């Protein structure tokens, strides 16, 4: 314990110079401002802002990057709440209740809750990294392909709970997401799958393209159709910050979200993506009135946002202790570190202690900056909703177009997004909710990869999933979730049939 405080003191000594605080502040501010643009998700934001850190010394650059990272994450949540566009997989859940809150005139409360929940989760996660970073690495190593596959199966079971309305339709969406995830070049054989022989599809469908299409563009189309609903958003601004009641309602979800997110974030292979979904599932299951979810329940913002930020932060553990980036954003961070001559790995901690602990301290400072910058900005973001919609959606479109273009510098991606916009509009018309599809899509790629790996390693024996204790445990949880999720609707069905 005392060692941890000594380390943290060293870290804060590095991070708390005037220059580094200024860098952290600038990074956080710029990250938020770029990340808040609809269509520019965290990955695009960080990739765009990476070059501005090139001229700095390594410690300063990493501190600024940490600021950019948190700013971009929060900026992404802001777009999810205000205009229903998730910039990355982890903010899909935030759109569900966050955007509903905005529609009810509670955008400020949603944004404030997200910022406070993120700050709390970030603080806890920083402590977790400082205290347990090294031992927790072992957890990551316990997860082989079989465990991952079972974890993904469990994640898909979470998706069922996301459903508003028909569970059958939610199943359809999950399977459709899985199906879409198999488009592209096969990893193992290099064969093209379902690409129509069209080269831009050979890497599969980009998450940003799919999400901007089925959420962003389709949402614009839906709003154009119902002028009444979107005008409600404009007239009602409501309170800007959460009041005591909101906070009381959020405390427990934030605590639960933080623990779930922090644990899942440590897993390499993008475990962090499951955090918000798991948190949402838990909150919806233990809520007294689950029907409030999807209609603007504050727990549905507080829990997942805490999980999101906790996971975003503990995702640094595999990177800092093993040198293994668990997801695309972390891979970018590796690149940034490498450019500054630091190759992340097991030895960073001992070889560059000031850098290691300085970065951990700056994570906390980054979270603090997030709060300092964003609470005053909540008013500005909410005011943006008052821009007449006839100007707002062309602005969304130009930002989305540029944002999507700049992810891979591929103009075809913009046209693809339009195609998925049409697809999303069709889904809305057919009464489907796209959120489970996105989860299916994100997990599908990993799931297929891990299934094939596990079966090659086990030489084709399915028993591997049951013989390995962690994998078996996860599968049990998955079955339990499914049973709990399906039983009420089954029994309700029977009841209703009998009362007829």
């Amino acid at each position, binding site marked *: 314990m005392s060692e941890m405080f000594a380390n943290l003191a060293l870290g804060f000594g590095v991070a708390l110079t005037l220059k580094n605080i200024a860098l952290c502040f600038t990074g956080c501010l710029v990250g938020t401002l770029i990340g808040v643009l609809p269509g520019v998700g965290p990955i695009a934001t960080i990739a765009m802002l990476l070059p501005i850190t090139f001229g700095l010394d390594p410690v300063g650059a990493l501190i600024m990057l940490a600021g950019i990272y948190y700013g971009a994450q929060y900026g992404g949540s802001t777009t999810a709440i205000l205009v229903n566009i998730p910039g990355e997989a982890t903010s899909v859940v935030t759109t569900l209740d966050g955007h509903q809150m905005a529609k009810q005139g509670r955008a400020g409360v949603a944004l404030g809750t997200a910022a406070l929940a993120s700050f709390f989760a970030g603080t806890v996660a920083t402590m977790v990294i400082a205290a347990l970073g090294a031992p927790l690495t072992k957890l990551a190593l316990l*997860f082989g392909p079989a465990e991952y596959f079972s974890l993904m199966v469990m994640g898909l079971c979470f998706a069922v709970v996301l459903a508003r309305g028909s569970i059958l339709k939610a199943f359809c969406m999950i399977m459709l997401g899985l199906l879409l995830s198999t488009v592209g070049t096969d990893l193992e054989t290099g064969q093209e799958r379902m690409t129509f022989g069209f080269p831009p599809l050979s890497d599969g469908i980009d998450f940003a393209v799919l999400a901007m299409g089925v959420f962003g563009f389709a949402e614009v189309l839906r709003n154009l159709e119902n002028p009444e609903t979107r005008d409600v958003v404009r007239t009602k601004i409501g309170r800007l910050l959460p009041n005591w009641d909101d906070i009381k309602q959020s405390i427990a979800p934030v605590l639960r979200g933080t623990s779930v997110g922090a644990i899942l974030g440590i897993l390499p292979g993008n475990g962090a993506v499951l955090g918000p979904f798991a948190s949402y599932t838990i909150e919806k299951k233990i809520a007294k009135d689950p029907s409030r979810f999807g209609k603007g329940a504050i727990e549905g913002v507080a829990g997942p946002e805490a999980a999101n930020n906790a996971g975003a932060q503990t995702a640094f553990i595999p990177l800092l202790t093993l040198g293994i980036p668990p997801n695309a954003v972390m891979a970018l961070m590796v690149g940034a570190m490498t450019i500054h001559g630091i190759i992340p*790995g097991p030895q960073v901690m001992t070889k560059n202690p000031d850098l290691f602990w300085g970065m951990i301290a700056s994570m906390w400072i980054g979270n603090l900056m997030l709060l300092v910058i964003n609470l005053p900005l909540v008013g500005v973001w909410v005011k943006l909703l008052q821009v007449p919609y006839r100007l707002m959606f062309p602005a969304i479109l130009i930002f989305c177009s540029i944002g999507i273009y700049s992810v891979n510098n591929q103009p075809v991606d913009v046209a693809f997004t339009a195609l998925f916009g049409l697809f999303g509009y069709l889904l809305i018309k057919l009464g489907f909710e796209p959120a489970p599809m996105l989860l299916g899509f994100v997990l599908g790629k990993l799931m297929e990869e891990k299934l094939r790996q596990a079966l090659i390693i086990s030489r084709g024996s399915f028993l591997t999933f049951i013989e390995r204790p962690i994998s078996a445990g996860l599968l049990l949880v998955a079955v339990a979730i499914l049973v709990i999720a399906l039983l009420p609707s089954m029994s309700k069905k029977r009841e209703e049939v009998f009362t007829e």
Partner: protein
Amino acid sequence: MKKLALSLAAALALALPAQAQSKYPERPITMIVPFAAGGPTDIIARIVSENMSKTLGQQIVVENVAGAGGTTGIARALTATPDGYTIAMGHLGTFSAAPATYPGLKYDPINGMQTIGLAGGTPILIVAKKNFEPKDLKEFVTYVKTNTDKVNEAHAGVGSVSWTTCTLLKGQLGVPKLNSVAYRGTGPALNDLVSGQIDFMCDQIVSVAEQVKAGTIKAYAIASVQRSPALPDVPTTKEAGLPEYQIEAWNGIAAPKGMPKEAVDKLVAALDKALNDETVKKRLLDLGTVLPTAEERTPAGFAALIKRDADKLSPVLAAAPKQ
């Protein structure tokens, strides 16, 4: 606005054909990197291009065009107007292995492009989980050959450097059908190597050096002519008894065929100057990169390298089992 005015002026100057020839470069040059920002090729491109920009007096803008194992970006660069304002940083995969891996390739790296020069080579290591039975490379070779059904090898997907180099190794050892496990990226593969789920893989020194130093995995050999200063204890394949396995994941600059000689010369000179710069050298060496020889920095030398590795890889890759 000032910049806008400047570029307007530059555009007008470009309209005067006689002057345009002698004053290359007059506007920013785009360097296409066919992989996502932050990867090994991107990092080398950014380090080298920063210094080249200073020499040329014009900014080299790095544009990441990822897709299809890097072939999308290279195809775009090589089909651009050959005016010297679009160049590309490609690697072993996109220039030497791609013709054998991607049947419908839209460019010809051997005859259809203007090479500029090699920017740096990254040695390949054969690494294994730390408690893998064989103690050295010789034992490893015998073990793999006699236990083809027991051994698991990992790679980062068809077309990746780890796949290409490991396929070459398996081809040379005569065990092309070894159990091979595909991962999305070397990061997750490395994770499973550290935890002992898989037995061995081939990867670039920059990705594995820290793990080897920390003892979480072990390295049998480095597939280059000399030992690396980053890992002085790891023997070369020649020392360890597998001299024919020589392969490097190099990165180099190329451009569309038919560009003005003046532009080629200036780019070659700028690249050479960058590679002689102390800061650039140090940053590249920190990455475990081997600096190119004087010969490899010339268009002809780089072209020869591409051809040599293509000849080495094509038969193995074409014969690789595609299940």
